[in-house]
């Protein structure tokens, strides 16, 4: 495992291009495009203001930089550096901007969600979509880029519109039986749309592409409901995490619950392996005087004896958005594993074996888990806790790696390269790349954590 040097970064804006060749990062008002492997700067664009959002087009040819404060979007071309495009939303304001899947349209949401503007880079045509709903996850493109599902709110009722992305024609428009729709998400096969209601009510609805209601699911009533939902890459499962600290896995045939995965703070199943992060004793790091002094001690994982009780957080019951329930969940690329985080056990990541529908591994960190992401190629999970370490888990085991560098590099977020060979570690003001490929290195993958390229 090798680490790149540390580069500057602002607002954690660092993205690999979809084709995996480039890496875009933002420093204040500058947009830097590097080669993803050599990290040499290929292009440097200057925007008019501090960039707040950056996004690659699907064909990796264009880059979109949004400056919400100014209501401005600037688009850059990688092929023609002199080409530029600037979209000004003027007094309407701007709160969100994204690419359409074809990479030739920019979708801007104005302030107060008055409307959505579809700007085309090919023609002068501009389309407007009225009444987009201001919610957690109101826009969802299908994986094949054909359809856009958009949550709308009209006359105090929730609607979903399905547009054909090729010509922005409305294909279907139907009202959902939700109180206050909170999110929509296409299944990866693009045939089923999952819709879930606000946290006040547990309600998951599944619509077919043609607007038919396939199924409605409600696990319980009179309590806080869905907090997060995720499709498995195979479209076979929909995992719904809720405020009661459980993940319910729905199947794609009957849309009934396959399993209820509880997240108790006490793990008692002897088949579950609990990896506990432990600070390394100072004796372990002897004989490396050249190593720069880290503020945080090195750590390693220990397999804990199985009746384990995890650290829990007592949530404040009188505040909004209490820190309870399953706030994050993700399937591995092969759909074999499901990683979840229970917000009132902030230090732990649960990894479930989807084939057996039971708990497989629990990682207990020393600090609260900030983010985790699966390797897009293999079942490998990267976790960060806001400390100077990055943690990797695979079925073979797990490891904690100190990010080298001067001072304290706090990994707040991370993102995988599309081939799974490298991992961008994003801190507050810096980022670095972690290369995992070890074809030539052989068994020295773990190596000394302080090795610099």
């Amino acid at each position, binding site marked *: 495992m090798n680490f790149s040097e540390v580069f500057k970064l602002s607002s954690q804006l660092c993205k690999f291009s979809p084709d995996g060749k480039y890496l875009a990062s933002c420093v204040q008002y500058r947009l830097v495009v590097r080669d993803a492997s050599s990290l040499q700067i290929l292009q440097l664009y200057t925007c008019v203001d501090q960039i707040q959002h950056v996004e690659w087009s*699907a064909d990796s040819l264009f880059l979109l930089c949004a400056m919400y404060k100014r209501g401005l979007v600037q688009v850059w071309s990688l092929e023609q550096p002199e*080409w*530029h*495009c*600037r*979209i*000004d*939303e*003027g*007094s*309407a304001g701007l709160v969100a901007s994204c690419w359409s899947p*074809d990479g030739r349209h920019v979708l801007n949401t104005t302030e*107060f969600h*008055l*409307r959505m503007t579809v*700007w085309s*880079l*090919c023609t*002068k045509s*501009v389309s407007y979509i*009225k009444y987009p709903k201001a919610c957690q996850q109101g826009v969802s493109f299908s*994986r*094949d880029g*054909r359809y856009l599902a958009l949550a709308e*709110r*009209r006359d*105090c009722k929730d609607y979903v519109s399905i547009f*054909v992305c*090729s*010509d922005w*024609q409305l*294909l279907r428009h139907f009202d959902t039986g939700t109180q206050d729709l909170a999110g929509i998400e296409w299944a990866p*096969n693009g*045939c089923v749309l999952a819709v879930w209601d606000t946290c006040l009510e547990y309600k998951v609805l599944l619509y077919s*592409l043609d607007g038919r209601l396939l199924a409605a699911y409600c696990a319980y009533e009179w309590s806080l409901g869905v907090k997060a939902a995720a499709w498995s*890459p*195979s*479209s*076979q499962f929909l995992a719904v995490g809720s405020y009661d600290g459980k993940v319910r896995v729905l199947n794609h045939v009957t849309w009934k619950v396959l399993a209820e995965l509880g997240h108790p703070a006490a793990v008692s199943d002897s088949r579950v*392996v609990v990896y506990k992060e432990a600070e390394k004793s100072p004796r372990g790091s002897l004989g490396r005087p050249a190593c720069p002094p880290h503020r945080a001690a090195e750590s*390693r*994982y220990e*397999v804990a004896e199985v009746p384990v009780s995890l650290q829990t957080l007592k949530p404040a019951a009188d505040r909004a958005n209490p820190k309870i329930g399953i706030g994050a969940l993700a399937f591995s690329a*092969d*759909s*074999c594993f499901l990683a979840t985080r229970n917000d009132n056990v902030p230090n732990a990541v649960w990894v479930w074996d989807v*084939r*057996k529908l039971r708990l*497989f591994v629990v990682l207990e960190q020393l600090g609260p888990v900030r983010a985790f992401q699966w390797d897009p190629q*293999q079942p*490998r999970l990267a976790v960060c806790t806001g400390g100077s370490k990055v943690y990797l888990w*695979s*079925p*073979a*085991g*797990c*490891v904690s790696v100190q990010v080298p560098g001067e001072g304290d590099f706090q990994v707040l977020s991370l993102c995988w390269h599309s081939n799974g060979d490298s991992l961008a570690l994003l801190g507050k003001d810096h980022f670095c790349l972690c290369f995992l490929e*070890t074809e030539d290195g052989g068994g020295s*993958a*773990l190596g000394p954590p302080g090795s610099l390229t």
Partner: protein
Amino acid sequence: MGDWMTITDPGLSSESKNLSQYTSETKMSPSSLYSQQVLCSSIPLSKNVHSFFSAFCTEENIEQSISYLDQELTTFGFPSLYEESKGKETKRELNIVAVLNCMNELLILQRKNLLAQENVETQNLKLGSDMDHLQNCYAKLKEQLETSRREMIGLQERDRQLQCKNRNLHQLLKNEKDEVQKLQNIIASRATQYNHDMKRKEREYNKLKERLHQLVMNKKDKKIAMEVLNYVGRADGKRGSWRTGKSEARNEDEMYKILLNDYEYRQKQILMENAELKKVLQQMKKEMISLLSPQKQKPRERADDSTGTVISDVEEDPGELSRESMWDLSCETVREQLTNSIRKQWRILKSHVEKLDNQVSKVHLEGFNDEDVISRQDHEEETEKLELEIQQCKEMIKTQQQLLQQLATTCDDDTTSLLRDCYLLEEKERLKEEWSLFKEQKKNFEKERRSFTEAAIRLGLERKAFEEERASWLKQQFLNMTTFDHQNSENVRLFSAFSGSSDQDNLTAHSRPRQKPHGVSNGAPVCSSKFTKSLPASPSTSDFCHTRPCVSEHSSINVLNVTPEEAKPNRAGRECASQKWSVASRPGSQDGCCSGCSLTYTNSHVEKDDLP
């Protein structure tokens, strides 16, 4: 007469006093001393009597006394003390005999009276004690009554209190319920109000939005614009198409096509899964039939009611099997047949497993008997063989010795011995060597023989162990297979109906090992072959050896079929990963790579996703 009375009075009173004294004495005395006391007391009584008499009768008044006594006695019905006088004038004579008789009678009477008195007294005592006891009892019961009465009053009081409390609680509950109802109503009204307000607010918000929209958008805001250097081509290279009814229809078509594709894909997947499962079922059936076929002949002979159905099932099996294309048929037609036959087979198998179970236990019971017979047979055969060999060797040695002797004698006789001496010596040496060699051989044979007997014994033991192991393995195998038909309560019921026949099977199985050696020794091949054929246990080694790899092969094929593409890279990845990270590796992490059909779906789905 009056004088006497006055005189007698004290005496009588003294007697009565005495009596009272006596009675008081007896009253006081314990019962054990009672008789003694009586004896003792009789003495002073006699004395008293004596003194009484002395007082009553003096020298002077004998006559009067006698007449008085006579009178008294006659009034009491005793015979007169006087002799019957002939004449009235003559003085009546005192009849001593009569006096004595009277005395005796009096004494007897006295004794009787005493006895009666005693009895009465004891009875009196008893009654007295009874009385006491009863009085005690009465007192106690009275007390009890009193206490229970008090208790009752207490309880009644408590009951009253509790009832009071209960009433209060009921009241409270009612109040609470009312409260809850009220609160619920309040909540509901609040909720409706909230919703109403929300709606109103939202409407207002929408109005404002609309207004804002008009204000912002319709003003022809010069700022709202896109500056672009030049328009770029579409990603697909085509020109944008106009939005027309045609395109709308095309979009619809496309959508339905996508949906159809998805459904078709899913249907195919399900069909594949079904076919796979059917195949598994079919194979299982075949295996079961092959496994159970030797067993079938027996029930057929017995022609039991329960097994009759089995036979018919078996007979229709080949017909079914010939239709290889049966999984192309729709489910309804095939499913029932298949599941039914499988169920039947399963029942047979279960009974068979039970039988095996019994056999195992029986083997445990019978212990070495069975094994001994077999091993001894082999053993004996082998020893016979060895002995034969030894015999042959011995004979050879003998003949050679004879030859040697002959040679020696001829040599002695011969004059040309000297000439041959060298030869002879050489030969002798050679023979000696041979001799020793033979001896060694013999020794070796002996050793071999010994080792062989040991080996034979060991073989017997091993065989027994193997038998046990096989039985347990089979049992386990079938128990493992039980999982797929668990819910079928009907099956269980029918199985219990089958258990009768299985018992019979057990009986025959019991009789088999005893019969088998007979058959062999008698040299009746028909009989023995019948036995071996009809019973699954005797040809089992070959049969099960045949089926075991079949099953395992099948399962492995299954696994491989399901996850061939997945398992390999996965494992490879894992190995590579384990190479990489050796910090904390999981002991049993490899086990997760094989699973059910869902994975094929997963994988193929992923592939499918990549296609468009």
